[in-house]
């Protein structure tokens, strides 16, 4: 999948992605419209399906609110690439099928608006001039990504499938 880079900095919190004043709802479209509403006010109107978010350290730190990755996914973002992710955000993103890739240098070498193509399973990131190798989810997280979401994994094989090492994709 190919799209443009939205470049963000270090320590982008879930309060920045989805401020607490905007997540008193489960309505997907309301959440979509509030994504990065204060931190990057141009995001919702300019993002297109296939675009990617590229950020620095500790992306998604703070609250466990799943509204944050949901709002990113609902905007059609193909992947979030960050030097590192906060634990709960990473797990939430995997659970709902939002691709996440760890890559130390992406935020240093890619620029806002660059066109990139990303392979969420292999972690490969390519622009016109660069090829980067990121680290895609592994272990249980990879199993969930293969199934599409945690709900799908549980529906198709449950915890038993994981314990037995079966693939459920």
């Amino acid at each position, binding site marked *: 999948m190919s799209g443009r880079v939205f470049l963000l900095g270090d*320590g982008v*919190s879930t*309060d*920045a992605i989805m*401020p*607490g*004043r905007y*997540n*008193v*709802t*489960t309505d997907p479209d309301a959440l979509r419209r509030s994504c990065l509403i*204060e*931190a990057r006010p141009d995001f919702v109107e300019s993002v297109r399906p296939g675009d990617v978010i590229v950020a620095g*350290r*500790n992306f998604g*730190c*703070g*609250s*466990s*609110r*799943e*509204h944050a*990755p*949901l709002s990113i996914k609902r905007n059609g973002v193909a992947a979030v690439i960050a030097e*590192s992710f*906060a*634990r*709960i955000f990473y*797990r*939430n993103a995997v*659970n*709902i099928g939002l691709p996440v890739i760890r890559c130390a240098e992406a935020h240093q070498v890619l620029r806002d608006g660059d066109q990139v193509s990303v392979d969420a399973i292999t972690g490969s990131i390519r622009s016109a001039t660069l090829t980067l190798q990121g680290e895609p989810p592994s*272990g*249980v997280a990879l199993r969930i990504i293969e199934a599409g*979401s*945690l*709900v799908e994994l*549980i*529906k198709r094989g*449950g*915890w038993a499938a*994981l*314990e037995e090492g079966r693939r459920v994709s």
Partner: protein
Amino acid sequence: MGTITEELFSRRLGRRVHAGDTVIAEVDVAMAHDVTGPLAIEAFRSLDLPLWDASRIVFNFDHVMPANTVAAAELHRVIREFCVEHRITNLFAEGICHQVMVDRRLAQPGGIVVGADSHSTTYGGVGCFATGLGSTDIGVVFATGRTWFRIPETVRIDVRGALPAGVYAKDLALHVIAQMGADGADYCAVEWGGEAVAAMTIDERLTLCNLSTDFGAKTGIVEPDAVTFAHSGGEPIDLHPSHPEYVRTLVVDAGSLRPQVAVHPSIDNVHDIDDVSGTPLDEVFIGSCTNGRLSDLAVAASILSGRTVHPRTRTVIVPASRGVYLEALSAGYIEIFARAGALVLNPGCGPCLGRQHGVVGPGERVLSTSNRNYPGRMGSPDAQIFLASPAVAAASALAGAITDPAALEAAA
């Protein structure tokens, strides 16, 4: 052989597990609140499976309680109807979820508790493995009673000596966060120990474990001891670390600490109070799952007693739970706060996350006893948030500016 976390999981699973192992484990209790609960319910419904165990599922209304918008009322309705449908009786509207979990002894030493809130790590203060998860993970627990864990590596914080007068668990935690960085314990368990921690009350241990998530930890935990078992009322268990291997050990000399302030815009931007004394404040908030407990209100009351808060500084005080509120009433603290000119609000999350009362405007400065100072956390992204102990908060409310309580005493 292992850290507290390895000992706890090994005991629960009946086999030795080590950091790096992935396990699927049954939990004791799964908790969600009014904002994360409805998404967890959606995830549960999409599985089309029966409910795991109504007695081990807990909902709390705290983030927007009582509802301040139609949308918030709707979230409450969804949860109430779910609880009726599934005969879930653990539905509480009596304060912050984490304090209610402790007040009601729903988190027990040696247990495994998961909550759809990042500060679920708080219950490590009573010696259980407790961690925050998202709504989908919790919805799956509602159906299966289980979730997966990667057994975390452990960071040991060894706190030697004793905290000086006027320096609290909050100051210790902020000092540690400054040393570690805001992601310094990412994916790790944080084990708080040493003389100063052994000497702490449950309230103070809860503060340390609460703030563990704010430097990335999966859990914070204090080895359960006589203090823990006196609180839990249960049988003692032994989770003493045995030949543990730590990824990092941080030794802190408690006696050298001064009151600390985390300065806008990040929790690891920590300064000794002297660096920021005199900064004028528009609002002071005393409360939250970090510092809204009885001992916190006692400290605030001792400073505010017989005095009046500065007219430019609206001062909001929120007991963490109904239990805390009732004890504060009996002790006379609530009257002290009211006479001092503070606004005492109903138990709950209060102004911490800018969703209901106490929202801050652009350009304003607020000092909070809470745990997060991300831009936009308490309202306008152009407000500045300072984090400190209840003692600093109370002294600052009186002065209308960030103030060392010791300086206040000296001037009196």
